[in-house]
């Protein structure tokens, strides 16, 4: 049986590449990001209100970038999460079968859209409309980016929420109807609360995707590294900062390290949201069994 151990060892070794890649990502971001701390303190980095990386001496205040990311993510979630939940409830509870065959492909299709195309649409379609309607200097701003991010996030949250709703056991619904509840009462008081961990974890994953999205915000969010005060302000989230500036930064310069630190920050935030979503899912499953 010695022969049979060799494939097992090979398979396990190849599989460990997955762990290696994840560990290496963290390692390299830390390795290339930490050197920026020799030039500025972490307080200045995270709390500094001015991002002037190409000045002499460079100023690396990431607060506007961070707030840009957070504000775009928050606004897009505000727009997308209610719609996603409504669509999920529709597909799981109310839609007739033929409507299933329409909604599922539509959601999948939207989910396959490359982000660059949505960013492009934001530039050519939404920006001029926003500019005219609201009399703005530019239509490339937080609102534009949030609308598109919201569109991107809807398929993700909808499908996860719909899965959660569909896995609610029939017996619970039947029991609710047996007690005389209407369909809507059953949905609101029985089905949704039972599916809540799945819905929450799906919502978190949508938020995580919004924070990590690069191309949409690069093309559409405006690119001004300012602390936003209104939804019509242009912003410069962490992602688009990295994508826009890395191409012109000499390898090994302090700007280079600052951008890697921004990437590290981004990674830590998205990992935290991911882990929170995993934890909510696990806890939900434990409570159910």
């Amino acid at each position, binding site marked *: 049986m010695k022969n049979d151990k060799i494939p097992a060892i090979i398979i396990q070794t190849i599989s460990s590449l997955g762990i290696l*890649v994840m560990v290496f990502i963290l390692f390299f971001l830390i390795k290339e990001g930490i050197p920026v701390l020799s030039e500025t303190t972490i307080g200045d980095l995270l709390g500094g209100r001015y991002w002037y990386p190409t000045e002499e001496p460079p100023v690396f205040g990431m607060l506007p970038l961070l707030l840009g990311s957070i504000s775009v993510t928050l606004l897009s979630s505000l727009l997308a999460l209610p*719609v996603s939940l409504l669509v999920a409830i*529709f597909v799981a509870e109310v839609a007739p079968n033929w409507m299933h065959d329409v909604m599922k492909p539509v959601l999948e299709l939207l989910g396959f859209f490359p982000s660059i195309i949505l960013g492009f649409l934001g530039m050519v379609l939404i920006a001029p409309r926003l500019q005219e309607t609201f009399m703005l200097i530019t239509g490339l701003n937080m609102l534009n980016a949030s609308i598109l991010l919201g569109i991107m996030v809807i398929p993700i949250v909808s499908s996860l929420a719909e899965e959660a709703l569909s896995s609610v056991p029939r017996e619970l619904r039947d029991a609710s109807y047996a007690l005389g509840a209407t369909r809507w009462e059953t949905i609101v008081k029985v089905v949704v609360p039972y599916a809540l961990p799945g819905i929450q974890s799906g919502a978190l994953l949508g938020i995580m995707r919004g924070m990590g999205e690069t191309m949409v915000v690069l093309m559409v969010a405006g690119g001004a590294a300012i602390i936003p005060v209104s939804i019509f302000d242009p912003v410069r989230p962490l992602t688009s900062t990295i994508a826009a500036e890395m191409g012109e930064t000499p390898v090994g310069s302090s700007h280079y390290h600052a951008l890697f630190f921004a990437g590290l920050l981004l990674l830590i935030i998205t990992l935290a949201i991911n882990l929170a979503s995993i934890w909510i899912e696990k806890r939900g499953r434990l409570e159910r069994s």
Partner: protein
Amino acid sequence: MSFVLWGSAAFLVLLVLAILLYILANGWESLSWEFLTQPPRDQMTKGGISTPLVGTIQLVIVSISFALPVGVATGLFFAEYSSGGIFTNGLRLAIRCLAGVPSVVFGLFGLSLFVVLMKFGSCLLSAGLTLACLALPLIVTASEQAFLAVPKEYRDGSYALGATKWQTIYKVVLPAAMPTIVTGAILSIGRVAGETAPIIFTGAAFFTPGFATSLFDEVMALPYHILVLATAGTHITETRPIQYGTVLVLLVLVLGVSFVGVYLRNRFRKTSRV
């Protein structure tokens, strides 16, 4: 109340249709055989998109060549060899975390590891490897599901005939799971073809005079072409029709590949319910 639900569903369907029609209407006039087979000319205001198109195909080939073996092996490990211990849990967590890493962070990783440390430079290989890391979680998930879907009876029958575990996997389980695995790979192709951020600083070029002939050449790519024409080019308004055309081609490519994958997946789900 169901009015609100029906309304939100209708809103979504109309939104998607509107987006598709808008892109089709604006990109249609740029489409032609020349558009697909000619490279860009005259500072990209004329000509076609053959170089980015071929570049995208090359990127897909390189990335899937690396991601598929590793992903299938990992899926196989989860389905057949894992014992639920700390390695398995750690690996699961790592794959789940990888699935959530922002695409621009993959770009940073690829830059620091493949371009700088391993000295490959900005090239097809670096970009392809970076994209492979991005595609890995997708292929792992699809493979694991594919292996788990193979009926227990297949394995039992094989063992009853005296086969070893590896013989069973190699000759029975793997062929049975292959269609679903291929479907997962096809879906990953759609994802990889549309990604921009991982390739910006690892291999994508604003312009290359010809196709990449070696792994160490830079490549043009459809999504990056859209980005530079629309934001960084010198003739943003003149190239607008070409931008729309490129968007349409990329969309058709990604949606076409993805829907082939979805169709195959649904077909295999039905036939495996024997």
